[in-house]
């Protein structure tokens, strides 16, 4: 009896299943994650296309409509010099989300690099992990405040007021939030390194760089994706906190945290100035956190089987 004689009818009838298909199927089961994704999608859409659709200049000063309460002309009211809050929130969201995503990418890159190097090369492990521990022991928020205070003016002079502070904030959030990713990635790499497929790749003479990019990295993708969502949420909160303490972006360059900080002094007069930016931050972070929750469940093969 030859092998070719055996047909495989099930394989033909069964729908095509791939890893990412399974992940997506499990992800859709997570109600919170789906709601989070819709809300995050809406926020992204509003922030990217909103300023063009709404068509009101966030910097336009209308001195006759100062401290206006919400109305048809100004859906969220105006601030103390008559700028439209809604337009500012749409504009500010761009900066907040851009900071969140760029800082997350930087943190992810650093964390993955250090985690993979520490996990794969035993000679580097001790030093890199001690460095990670050291960074974990740093009091992050006070240090961030100090660094911004110290280097704000230098960078402003070098790159201009907006780009300079953007680079500074992204950079410092990035280099102070890679530690968790590095630890998780290192743990996974340590386990993967001993698996047969890595041994097989090694025995046919694959150089370490190829092993890492071809065999290790695709397998540590799931923890990296989960920490990406957490990283975005964390970076948005940190940026808002810095702006809220008055050490973030300048006042004429709105971000959600900055709007909240400026609005806090007028909250008896126009409470909308506090509520809407805060709601925008909270909804974004909440939806991103739910997406991360769903991703973690979907990417965990022990849960996905059920």
């Amino acid at each position: 009896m030859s092998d070719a004689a055996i047909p495989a009818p099930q394989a033909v009838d069964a729908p095509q299943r791939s890893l990412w298909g399974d992940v997506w199927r499990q992800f859709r089961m997570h109600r919170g994650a789906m709601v989070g994704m819709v809300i995050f999608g809406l926020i992204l859409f509003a922030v990217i296309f909103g300023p063009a659709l709404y068509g009101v200049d966030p910097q336009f000063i209308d001195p006759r409509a100062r401290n206006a309460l919400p109305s048809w002309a100004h859906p969220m009211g105006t601030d103390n010099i008559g700028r439209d809050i809604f337009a500012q929130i749409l504009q500010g969201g761009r900066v907040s989300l851009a900071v969140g995503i760029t800082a997350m990418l930087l943190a992810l890159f650093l964390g993955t690099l250090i985690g993979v190097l520490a996990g794969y090369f035993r000679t580097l492990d001790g030093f890199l992990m001690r460095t990670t521990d050291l960074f974990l022991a740093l009091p992050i928020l006070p240090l961030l405040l100090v660094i911004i205070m110290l280097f704000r003016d230098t960078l402003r002079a070098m790159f201009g007021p907006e780009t300079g502070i953007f680079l500074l904030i992204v950079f410092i959030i990035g280099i102070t939030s890679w530690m968790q990713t590095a630890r998780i990635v290192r743990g996974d790499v340590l386990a993967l390194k001993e698996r047969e497929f890595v041994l097989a790749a090694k025995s046919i003479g694959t150089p370490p760089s190829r092993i890492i990019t071809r065999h290790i990295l695709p397998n540590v993708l799931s923890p990296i994706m989960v920490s990406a969502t957490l990283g975005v949420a964390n970076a948005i909160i940190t940026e808002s906190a810095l702006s809220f303490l008055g050490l973030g972006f300048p006042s004429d360059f709105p971000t959600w945290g900055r709007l909240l900080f400026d609005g806090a002094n007028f909250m008896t007069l126009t409470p909308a100035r506090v509520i809407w930016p805060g709601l925008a931050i909270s909804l974004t972070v909440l939806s991103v956190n739910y997406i991360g929750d769903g991703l973690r469940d979907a990417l965990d093969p022990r849960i996905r089987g059920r």
Partner: protein
Amino acid sequence: MFAFTLRRLLYAVPTLLVISFIIFALLDLSPGDPTANLPLTIPADVREQIRISLGLGEPFVIRYLLWLQQFFINEPLNILERMTGWTIGDSENRMRVISWQTRSPVVDLIAERMPQTLWVVGMSYVVGILIAIPVGVICAYKQYSLFDQFGTLFAMIGFSVPTFFTGLVLIVIFSVNLGWLPSIYDTNLRVTSFETFWLQVKQMIMPVMVLALANAAQIASFMRASMLDNLSQDYVRTARAKGMKERTVLLVHVLRNSLIPVVTVIALGIPSIFSGAIITEQIFRVNGLGQLLITGIQGADLPLVQTLTFIFAFLIVAFNLIADLVYGILDPRIRYE
């Protein structure tokens, strides 16, 4: 265990030294000039003398070593003297870390601010734990029930909504609209009678609840996960099979085992009592350590900021160590050799 403790302690020393160096160097590299805020009419040579009197004439290494000596030897000796009433050596002329803004010793400033922070932030941590543990236990025991759904949603919200937003919303509702609670924390209030006690309670409710919500969210989700891990263990089935009351199984067997990781999480969170409440203190105008740091940063008061930041770092390292040791003591399965 002893060897492990000793090893960790020895390891903590270089960590702290490196951190202190990073903090010192970072601040020292700053382009800011402490005399920049002084009037412009001061002639250049007088300005230079002021700089020298602030200790800026010495080279970097000397200043770092002096600061280390002041921080690790002089100040602890001062505290010891004050606590015991002894006089050790030449205590009158001992160099202290002096704040540039107020010209008073940094440690005295910190001691002034410490009670408010400990009282408000510490209370919020306790309240947070008291909320979190029952919520976590019930959520895990009744997994997927309505209470669990609400509990996890609540935890997610507490985890995601930043304290500067919850704080402001509470102020808008309770201070601005309803007028029930004061939005500014009054440190001069002395509790002497029932009325002042009530005022104290009223001004503490909002900052404490804002921080408690954030803390409770984190601890409750840990508690829930830890309970769920333990509820499916064999020893729980054994305990039930022996005919124990459900109450005993849950509150004695499962709760005690589930608390082990939660206790370490709580210990790891204690340093954030001191440093993490910067924002809340700023919102409610509590003049605690966080506000001291902010004013120090804004006034470019290097000695103050260096010392405070380093104290925060010291607390993080210390409580990491404590968490490890507590874990080893509580869980007999963990044996450090």
